[in-house]
């Protein structure tokens, strides 16, 4: 394995981990409500931008980060309460437009509350690159990979071992049946938006020291997270993580070996190619239609 390949792989994994976190947010909301939340990318932006302004106000990371995540989660809960809940039963297109409207609104709000400039966060623990197998990795990348791994483990514990997690899982399988066994599906839907928003915010904070953040950083991250979720198969947790990592690696590899001009297009070329042959993504449920 050449050092160059190793370098691209490490960079790809870092970017991919971020896509995976965003994709998990898409999947959690989709499972609870069958809504694709196109405002998911704005949570990433809110996480990063809120941390920037809180640290600028003199707060240490240990305080600023939890506050920023809580702020994003609150916005997520408000989005569910005031925009998605009142439109229950609307068609797929209508819900897509509502969440896109919300994302435009939040971006406009961020522009007014903050500004249009790019901001960089200080890396959590220094910026001396660490050498691994001929390649180097930033300490911040290790943070990204480590925190993502921890979140994935925590989520699998949450959905597999806790009552609330199992209730959310049950709702995703069959809403009506879940309601019949006494699960409060409206609460599940409400909480899923908060959880997804928090995940998005974490992604935004982790990546901000590496790629900088700004009011419109959520557009591309949101779309690529959506692509990762679709690639893995909507609603599949494993799929979201695999899809995210695969997109991240493919993107860095093609930017390194082929052409960096089309770096942002690669994700969409891959998703089209995969959907041509596997219409439900890699791990998606294959259903049949009832008449």
């Amino acid at each position, binding site marked *: 394995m050449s050092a160059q390949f190793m370098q691209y792989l490490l960079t790809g994994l870092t970017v991919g981990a971020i896509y995976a976190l965003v994709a998990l947010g898409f999947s959690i909301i989709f499972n609870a409500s069958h809504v694709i939340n196109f405002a998911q990318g704005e949570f990433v932006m809110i996480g990063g931008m809120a941390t920037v302004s809180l640290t600028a106000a003199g707060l240490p990371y240990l305080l600023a980060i939890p506050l920023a995540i809580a702020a994003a989660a609150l916005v997520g809960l408000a989005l569910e309460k005031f925009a998605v809940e009142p439109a229950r039963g609307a068609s797929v297109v209508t819900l897509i437009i509502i969440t*896109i*409207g919300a994302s435009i609104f939040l*971006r406009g709000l961020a522009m007014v509350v903050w500004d249009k400039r790019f901001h960089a966060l200080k890396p959590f623990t220094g910026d001396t690159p660490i050498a691994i197998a001929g390649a180097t990795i930033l300490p911040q990348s290790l943070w990204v990979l480590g925190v993502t791994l921890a979140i994935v483990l925590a989520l699998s514990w949450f959905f597999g071992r806790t009552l609330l997690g199992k209730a959310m899982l049950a709702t995703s399988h069959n809403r009506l049946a879940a309601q019949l066994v006494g699960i409060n599906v409206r609460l599940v839907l409400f909480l899923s938006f908060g959880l997804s928003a928090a995940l998005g915010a974490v992604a935004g904070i982790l990546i901000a020291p590496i790629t900088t953040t700004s009011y419109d950083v959520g557009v591309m991250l949101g779309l690529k997270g959506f692509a990762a979720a679709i690639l893995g198969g909507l609603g599949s947790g494993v799929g979201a993580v695999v899809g995210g990592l695969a997109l991240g690696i493919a993107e860095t590899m093609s930017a390194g070996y082929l052409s960096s001009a089309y770096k942002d*297009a690669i994700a969409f070329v891959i998703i089209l190619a995969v959907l041509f042959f596997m219409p439900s*993504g890699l791990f998606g449920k294959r259903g049949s239609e009832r*008449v």
Partner: protein
Amino acid sequence: MLARLASPRTGGLLALAAAIALLPLVLSNKYFYDIAILVGLNAIVCVGLNLLIGYAGQISLGHAGFFGAGAYGSAILASRYGWPPLAAMLATTLAVAALAYLVGRPILRLRGHYLAMATLGLGIIIFMVITTEDKFTGGPDGIAVVPLSIGGFVLQGERVWYWVVGALLLLAVWLALNLIESPAGRALRALHSSEVGAEVVGINAAEHKVMVFVISAVFASVAGSLAAHYSGFITPGKAAFLHSIELVTMVVFGGMASTFGAVVGAAVLTTLPQLLAVFEDYEMMVFGAVMMGTMIFLPRGVVPSVARLFRARRNAAADDEERKG
């Protein structure tokens, strides 16, 4: 005769023609003409897109890509290679139709969110090709476009363009209404309610979906070509994801499965940003809020909601008559 005129098809077409003919009475300056032309061009795209979304029940988050492809195809062939504009427009339209057909066949097998993703991806790829291949397209800075000339006659000035776009909009609406009333249109509505059901009664769902996808792409491409020639300059923003969203919002805002709703949606959402300019920094916020608000409170769109209100009122009046009699 009167009943025929009152039917939504003829009556609606006449009403639209009247509106187009009378509108210049209130268009007091060039700026208003300019907005009216933009409304007309967007309306042509929306009438086509409505066939796909409203009638066939499919979704496309990438139609700005076709609009951009039409605009840039015309711009490059006519301005860089000196083709006659009409020939350039024809060649571009055929190329876009071929692209829509080739891509449409595999992606229209997809459903719901997967189809949304595929069309979104297609639109973004077209957008990125336009911004990256700057040797041909001028990149993010855009490209100047020669005016539209037919034979020796050069189409210039807002007034001339107004009538051209108005006539083409009428033609687009007429084509769409005829398609909807044809066996193919009934097939589309059948597969909207159930694809399996439609196939059981012998409708080739795949073929019909691809057909309507190509038709809507052609409408978008032609409108794009016209927009490029009209404004004399085109930038990649017209092919961007946000423009795709604006187009879909126009269709849904006006009312899905309502051809005249698509025209109303285009009119309202094209003029809205002009009005919102007074909000300056808050423009984006207000636009997002309007998008959310209308979809939450009028999920069926304006025209069908208003039509229902009228019908309810008429029924109530009829009930009153009955009670009195």
